[in-house]
């Protein structure tokens, strides 16, 4: 059995050795089952430590994100805020539609003037004035 100190083995597991030393230990481990088992135990211990510290970090990230993230909004199928915005938008559209039906389109304001091309203020039901023009007959063609 080859004697290798724990110091050397831990440095080997931690990747702290030079490439030459690492290769030399690799060769020793191929031939020595006891040392190989020791190195495996050290790697196993390190892996479990890393996993334990990762578990703490996951808890910290969850805790911090829960503080930073906004609270979930109330509502049935959609949040109340979205519902309010949608209702306000619908109301505005309906109001504009009713105004258009009542005053015509484009909208006009009584007393201010008429929209170009509109006959009356109300803009509905009156026919445009007819203007008669006198047209002189064409002169007869002389042979």
């Amino acid at each position, binding site marked *: 059995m080859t004697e290798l100190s*724990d*110091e050397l083995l*831990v*440095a080997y*597991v*931690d990747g*702290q050795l030079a490439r030459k030393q690492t290769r030399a230990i690799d060769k020793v481990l191929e031939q020595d089952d006891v040392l190989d088992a*020791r190195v495996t*135990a*050290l790697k*196993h*211990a*390190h892996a*479990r*430590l*890393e*996993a*334990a*510290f*990762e*578990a*703490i*970090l*996951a*808890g*910290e*990230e*969850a*805790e*911090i994100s829960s503080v930073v993230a906004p609270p979930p909004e109330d509502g049935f199928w959609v949040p109340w805020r979205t519902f309010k915005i949608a209702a306000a938008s619908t109301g505005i559209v309906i109001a504009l539609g009713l105004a258009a039906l009542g005053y015509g389109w484009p909208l006009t304001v009584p007393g201010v003037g008429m929209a170009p091309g509109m006959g009356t203020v109300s803009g509905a039901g009156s026919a445009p004035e007819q203007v008669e023009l006198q047209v002189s007959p064409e002169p007869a063609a002389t042979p």
Partner: protein
Amino acid sequence: MQADDYYDSVRPGLVAMLPRLKRFADVLAGGRDEGRGLLQRSLHYMLDEQHHYQRGTSLDVWAFSELYCQWRHELSGEADPMTLARIDDVAFGALFSLDDEGYRDEPIIAYLVGLPPQQRLTLLLVYGEGFEHEDAGRILDVSSEMIAARLIRMSTSLADRLSDRPPAQAAAIVETLYPEGQRASS
């Protein structure tokens, strides 16, 4: 994120590191509540004194180091710092609680609870954060040789414990709450 990550500004860098800093504080203080208070006080200090941070150096090394200094500073004002440095098993074990009923490695938790704070942090900085020995030494105000010595001792004892081997011989290095320089000068 490793020790060679640099940030242009202290505040955004600290915000990005919050989960890591919180883990460091929790493991150091021994619980979420204790860690939160320690981190808050330390962050206030860091933001007030951010002009001490030298651009081009690793922000995470600086921040972890300041956090550790804050803890030591608070302990130094206590009449019995060793008693205060002890942690509650339940509070420390709660750090590993997972919402989705994940696996809790009880032998590892029990091992970490029994360690002095500096040794717990050494394991966290090297195996949890991936710091080089030099950077871990800078944070904990000890030499890289001391970090290597701690790792050898703890790694072998943990491997022995997990594989039911007889425990290794007691280490010759005596841990205290204070770094070697202060101990030697006192």
